[in-house]
């Protein structure tokens, strides 16, 4: 069941009144069963996986809390991590590893053969596995008490607003919220509704409109002129941003309507002045997860420059692999790792040489540079293989035939440019003014905003390409 669909509208219209009418344990149980129903709308068979992962980590965490013996605790933690990563490896990476191994063997002259398995990737597996793993790690580190109630824990793992594509909510942020009954609160409800509408706008109006153009550009790059492909890359940068941040907004808004607070997942990432800032603004919950459960345990920035660079690169490579079982994703991670390392080198060199640019010029140049290099990395993220990525980049680099009049799909281009401009203007304004506060303070503004978003969705929404990109991760 996806958020921008009629079945989900029916689901939420039935869910909300029953949810607020029930109390205590009944409410929690209803929430859990509804979340399982929501998931099984896609494929009920994979509920077994969620249940297995939930039961395992719930049991391991309880055992971890009871145990005082260091060796046993380590073994328990290892069990949880290995099983969770094992599930992920099995469903998400098995064919990738087999395929890569075969290619390597063939390259070395050993002619091996193997029939790849038809494995379905369970939706949301990367998200709920990470949530579940971070919970056992936190209990192991004694930063969090193990949850005693299975229903509360199971609801945390499978809570429908964030089950399929995040945000990755930490147990420490969520379990205490689940333990207390949430009363229907008009303020939260309206704040949530505003966030949901903005998310829908980003997804249905901007991301899906841009998708038409982007899909064509990356499917047949050989047929399009360089300017078309350049626009395709720029449009993709906004498509993926609006698609994923739109999903996150809807999830955060739905949770808010029900009385829960989810962490922010995006904060205008294309206004970043450095790559470290970009990762503090893009998919924030994943960045923080990788920082806390991978980068810091690897040693973080302790232990000298070389080790810091190594840790940065390893974190970004694994972050890339998390997105999908393909070398193009790994390369995307490699590029971002390189950017982060180069940024540190440049910062060091600038400080050593005392180079200083005027503030405004520095900001504009930094934003433009970060955005351009991010777009370069997106080419590998979006392309099905390296051949497509290199074709797209080499055609763009040829800088021939830059006439706009020769471009096909001018209507889609005009619509895309207008929507991106609108997004940037609204984001720039909200950098300076808290729009959501104004919206909640002035009822007329609120009413106008709600109605305008609905009109925009009716007039410009694209309803043919409705799947969210991050579902595949």
């Amino acid at each position: 069941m996806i958020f921008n669909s009629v079945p989900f509208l029916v689901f939420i219209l039935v869910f909300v009144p029953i949810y607020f009418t029930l109390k205590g344990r009944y409410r929690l149980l209803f929430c859990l069963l509804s979340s399982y129903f929501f998931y099984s709308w896609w494929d009920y068979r994979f509920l077994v996986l969620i249940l297995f992962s939930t039961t395992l980590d719930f049991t391991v965490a309880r055992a971890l809390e009871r145990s005082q013996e260091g060796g046993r605790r380590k073994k328990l933690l290892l069990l949880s991590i290995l099983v969770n990563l094992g599930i992920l490896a099995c469903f998400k990476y098995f064919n990738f590893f087999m395929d890569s191994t075969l290619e390597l063997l063939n390259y070395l002259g050993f002619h091996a053969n193997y029939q790849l398995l038809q494995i379905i990737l369970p939706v949301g597996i990367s998200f709920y596995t990470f949530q579940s793993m971070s919970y056992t790690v936190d209990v192991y580190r004694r930063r969090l008490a193990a949850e005693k109630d299975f229903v509360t824990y199971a609801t945390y793992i499978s809570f429908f607003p964030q089950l399929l594509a995040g945000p990755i909510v930490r147990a420490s942020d969520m379990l205490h919220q689940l333990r207390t009954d949430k009363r229907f609160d008009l303020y939260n409800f309206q704040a949530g509704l505003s966030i949901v509408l903005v998310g829908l706008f980003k997804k249905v109006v901007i991301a899906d409109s841009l998708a038409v153009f982007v899909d064509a550009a990356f499917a047949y790059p050989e047929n399009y002129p360089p300017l078309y492909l350049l626009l395709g890359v720029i449009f993709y940068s906004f498509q993926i941003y609006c698609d994923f941040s739109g999903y996150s907004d809807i999830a955060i808004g739905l949770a808010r309507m029900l009385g829960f607070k989810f962490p922010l997942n995006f904060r205008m990432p294309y206004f970043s002045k450095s790559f470290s800032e970009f990762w503090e603004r893009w998919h924030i919950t994943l960045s923080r997860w990788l920082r806390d459960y991978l980068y810091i345990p690897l040693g973080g920035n302790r232990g000298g420059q070389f080790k810091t660079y190594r840790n940065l690169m390893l974190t970004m490579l694994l972050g890339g692999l998390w997105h999908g079982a393909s070398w193009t994703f790994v390369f995307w991670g490699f590029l971002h790792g390189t950017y982060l390392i180069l940024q540190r080198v440049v910062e060091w060199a600038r400080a050593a040489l005392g180079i200083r640019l005027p503030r405004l010029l520095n900001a504009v140049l930094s934003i433009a540079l970060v955005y351009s290099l991010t777009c370069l990395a997106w080419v590998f993220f979006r392309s099905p293989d390296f051949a497509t990525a290199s074709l797209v980049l080499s055609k763009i680099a040829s800088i021939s035939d830059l006439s706009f009049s020769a471009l096909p799909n001018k209507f889609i281009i005009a619509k895309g440019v207008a929507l991106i401009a609108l997004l940037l203007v609204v984001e720039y304004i909200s950098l300076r003014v808290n729009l959501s506060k104004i919206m909640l303070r002035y009822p007329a503004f609120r009413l106008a905003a709600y109605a305008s978003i609905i009109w925009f969705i009716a007039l410009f929404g694209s309803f043919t390409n409705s799947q969210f990109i991050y579902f595949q991760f």
Partner: protein
Amino acid sequence: MLSRALRPYRQSLVQTKGVNQRGAKARFVRSSMLVLLLLVPVTFIGDRLLGAGLEWLLLESNFRYSRLYGGTAQADVVVLGNSRGHAFYEPEMEKLSGRTIFNLSYNALPISVGRALVEDYLDRYTPSVLVVDVSMLTKTEEQITNSFKAYESLSPRLDKLIERSSEETSTASQIFSLYRFNSEVFHRALYYLAKTDDDWILDKQISATMARNSRDLDRVSFRITKDRMRDLRHIIEVAERKGVTVNLVMGPYYPGYLKKISNLDQFLATIETATGYEVEDYSGLIRQDAMFSDYLHLNKDGSSIFLAELYEDEVF
């Protein structure tokens, strides 16, 4: 029972956590109730008003279908086709024949929509010749049918067709008037608000890579369906009843692509049997790369050669 069920909502009226002071809370609750109550009427009234404004803009446009429904599309010769129908370049046809031309062609236009458009045209105007490029019978794109929803209030035929093609689109258009204008057809109408659309033709040459790749193309087979044949037959019957001469033609294909079409003769024979009309086959008329913009479409130069041939053969 009901009272108990509603208790949490009643309590919420004085428990808005985000608002601190008591007076402010009450004001927020009142304004929120007002916003939520007014949202539905404001949304729908605004939708209808904006929809009426956009419909006015639609009829002000010089786009072909706006002219058709706006009453300014009288011509001697009317042309119907898909994107290949743009090769019937109106200024060139008018120059050759001295007659007025009106082109109903649209990219990937399904014959079912073509049927509604021709019938609507013949209800309103009196042309003497109708030229149909039969390649529009080779495929149907439901999306294009739905794209014509901008004109559904002006044509009961289109309205019925869209309802048959997609119940969801039809229902959504009834609920939201603005949704009718969420289509490429409407965007084109806006584009032609201040300019004419009779110069709609591709003006580029097929790329060397594309030309070379034609050797590796897969075989193409045209699907022949009873529905599409029935629609074409109906167009011819209506035109005959109104005393309009009908000419069926098959426009030129890029030679490399033409070779890959496995059932062209069978396709044309089926049309001829179904309609009793001969199809003038120009599919192999042009052989130079420079006359094509891609495998399916002639460019402006190619169109001139094609139209000269058609004129000589008295197709228009």
